């Protein structure tokens, strides 16, 4: 019993507690600034409101970040996810735009399957570069990060492809059971990956490879295959995120789709408690991290902070989140923090007072 208690305490006290606390603090700060922030209304049988928007808009980031979590757990990193978003979105939109009937469901599925297939090939390319050829992950995926944008431009021929396809639009804006469909897609992917890693031994093996690659090899793990696999999974997640991003605006822009999403995804993973050095990974933490980032973005817009200062504001909060998660920092300032609210909470409030002035 006390063992279970101890485990619970370590879990809550050290891992998910602070991300949750930060998220709650941000929501609270928003509500104070704008009392209607948390209000949800029913319209046409669908739920609407800022919290729903946050969930919907964070769906692509959650997807990308989930794949990124596995990659980072093996001690790697995948910078190419943004480009893969753009490519998959471009392929799907191109195929749909050339179809005689853009609302044909079967045709849309063909488009998705094609784009997903290409993404898997791109993921396999990353996987081969890292696991077989042995290029450092940051360099290997940088290749596709840069070249992939070009590839996306090539597919769209430098144009923004606009489509008018109901089924495709639904991926980003559709509803299911009163909630945006995107939420269910992200949730489904999260459950799938969780089952994939935690119901099988894959998760442990990924963590083992990330924790000590040589020891894993000597325990009989074919670490090359595991590393290859996580890059393919990451690309698949990025492709689905790419569908959402393009479906949101019913157009594919090779330049803008998924731009810098890799950085937000890495951030979400780190906020979620997975170490960039590899080893243990936390899918739930990653999802929380993605929600924190999206809430932050939404708050910044809601508070009318100018886009120039928004990035700085984001940076401040991110540093604060990372610091309070660092055991060394907590140990140092733990005594002072007790009795006062967590650091990020005051900072949005301060911002809030400054803005109207």
């Amino acid at each position, binding site marked *: 019993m006390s*063992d279970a208690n101890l*485990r619970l305490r370590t879990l809550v006290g050290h891992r998910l507690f602070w991300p949750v606390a930060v998220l709650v603090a941000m929501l609270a700060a928003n509500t104070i600034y704008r009392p209607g922030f948390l209000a949800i209304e029913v319209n046409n049988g669908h739920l609407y409101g800022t919290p729903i928007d946050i969930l919907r808009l964070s769906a692509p980031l959650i997807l990308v970040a989930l794949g990124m979590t596995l990659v980072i757990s093996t001690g790697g990193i995948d910078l190419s996810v943004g480009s893969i978003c753009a490519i998959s979105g471009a392929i799907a939109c191109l195929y749909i735009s050339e179809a005689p009937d853009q609302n044909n469901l079967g045709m849309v599925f063909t488009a998705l399957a094609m784009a997903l297939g290409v993404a898997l090939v791109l993921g396999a390319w990353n996987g081969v570069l890292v696991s077989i050829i042995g290029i450092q992950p940051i360099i290997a995926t940088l290749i596709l990060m840069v070249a992939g944008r070009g590839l996306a431009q090539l597919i769209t021929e430098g144009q923004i492809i606009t489509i008018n396809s109901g089924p495709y639009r639904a991926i980003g804006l559709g509803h299911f059971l009163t909630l945006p469909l995107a939420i269910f897609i992200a949730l489904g992917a999260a459950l799938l990956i969780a089952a994939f890693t935690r*119901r*099988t*031994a*894959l998760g*442990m*093996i990924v*963590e*083992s490879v990330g*924790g*000590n690659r*040589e*020891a*894993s*090899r*000597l*325990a*009989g*793990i*074919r670490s090359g295959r*595991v590393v290859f696999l996580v890059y393919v999974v990451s690309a698949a997640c990025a492709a689905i995120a790419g569908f959402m991003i393009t479906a949101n605006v019913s157009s594919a822009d090779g330049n803008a789709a998924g731009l810098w999403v890799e950085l937000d995804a890495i951030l979400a993973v780190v906020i979620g408690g997975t170490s960039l050095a590899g*080893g*243990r990974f936390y899918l739930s933490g990653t999802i929380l991290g993605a929600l924190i980032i999206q809430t932050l973005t939404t708050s910044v817009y809601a508070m009318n902070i100018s886009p120039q200062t928004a990035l700085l504001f984001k940076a401040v909060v991110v540093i604060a989140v990372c610091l309070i998660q660092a055991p060394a920092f907590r140990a140092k300032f733990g005594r002072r923090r007790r009795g006062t609210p967590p650091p990020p909470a005051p900072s949005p409030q301060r911002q809030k007072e400054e803005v109207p002035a």
Partner: protein
Amino acid sequence: MTDSRPVLTMTGISKSFPGVRALHDVDFRLFPGEVHALMGENGAGKSTLIKVLTGVYGIDEGVIILGDEQVAFSGPMQAAGAGVSTVYQEVNLCPNLSVAENIFIGREPRRFGAVHWAEVRRRARALLTRLDLDIDVTAPVASYSLAVQQMVAIARAIDVRAQVLILDEPTSSLDAGEVEQLFRIMRQLRDEGIAILFVTHFLDQVYRIADRITVLRNGTLVGEYPTAELPQLALVEKMIGKDLDVLERIEEQPRPELATLEEGTPFVEVSQLSRRGAVAPFSLTIHAGEVVGLAGLLGSGRTEVARLFFGADRADHGDVAVSGEPASLRNPVQAINQGIGFCSENRRAEGIIPDLTVRENMILAMQAARGWLRRIPRRRQDELVDKYIKALSIRPANPDMPVRNLSGGNQQKVLLARWLITEPRLLILDEPTRGIDIGAKAEIQKLVVQLSDGGMAVLFISAELEEVLRLSHKIAVMRDREMVAHLVNDDTVDADRVMQTIATGTQREEANQ
């Protein structure tokens, strides 16, 4: 030469680290124009002595006199400036820089404030000519063999008008021809009056090159001897620290007779297995239920043999048969599929996954063998993990604790459990008792006996002869990367004889077929 004044005198050197007395009242002298071998087992204090000399560590007590002055260097750079240069085992050059750049890195000759590259190249060429080496000094160091790289490191060391040159295991990665080349240069430098301090694990090399030997054991000085007056056997005795005639007879446990064990097909039979730079061709058979000990000094090739058996390294040549059928052990997966398990001597780097829990570390090998899709059911995991936590008395008995929080001995037991769970037919234990407390040590020894009684074959490697003698049915003796003898561990074999074999390598060999 020896009647001249020593260039270096270290007197009464003591150095402690928290909980360990690394050096205690050690004296050491070095004369100009001699090659002086510093000998001792692992942990005897050789590298600590070198490090206090070159200022990597401060000394607690004692005096170091170089030439006529008392010195206390603040670090290797200052020591090198004063004429005490060190070439380390792993050549620490920048592989991507040119030979000339490496030699003069940090002290490039300058002209008008800029590096005088022509001068750098000219002086590098002159230095290497002195070492009888004619290579392109503008080519990157990485393009040359390890031996040449070693020479370049030596060239860098002697350029600073060295009086004392410390070579810390310079030959460990060189082949025979390359060693010869190095020795030629060492003799030449010696004849020029440089005092060379030579650390090696290869006994033969000591007798080929050293004029004088200083032996350390457990941080204390055993003695200083002219090489000619110290036979190899006496040297090994002094290093290991047991006087042969007072060595106790090790109590034999009632064991199955080797002859009975060796009836029938051996489980593994390797013939002429070898890997360049690691171990010379060797043959060994291991039968079910048999404990084969590998004896030899550190660096004699024990671990290398074990790694070839497990496929951790690939053999260049040789044949393997498992249960009489030709087999391949080219990677760990193949070895595991044949029923072989391997506990590395390097627990931290090659054994535990520190972040994972005791449970996960234990089931890792079994899970890897099953493939990730077929997860071991939780209940089965609990059964296995509980069983081995109890059987090996692992403490704390908490399967969900990260393994990094366990003590060394308990981590070792977790690794043992990892392999025992896979029910191997051959378990390779490389130094399973090193660095763990005496209680855990006894438990692991007892376990080895139990396992072999149960029909498991064990390849047992240990630096402690007593342990090897107590547990093994037969002993393969390693010496200078060669398997020099197979001894049947019967009444005629004792530590005395094994030590003689380690020392001379010329004991009569016995066929064990």
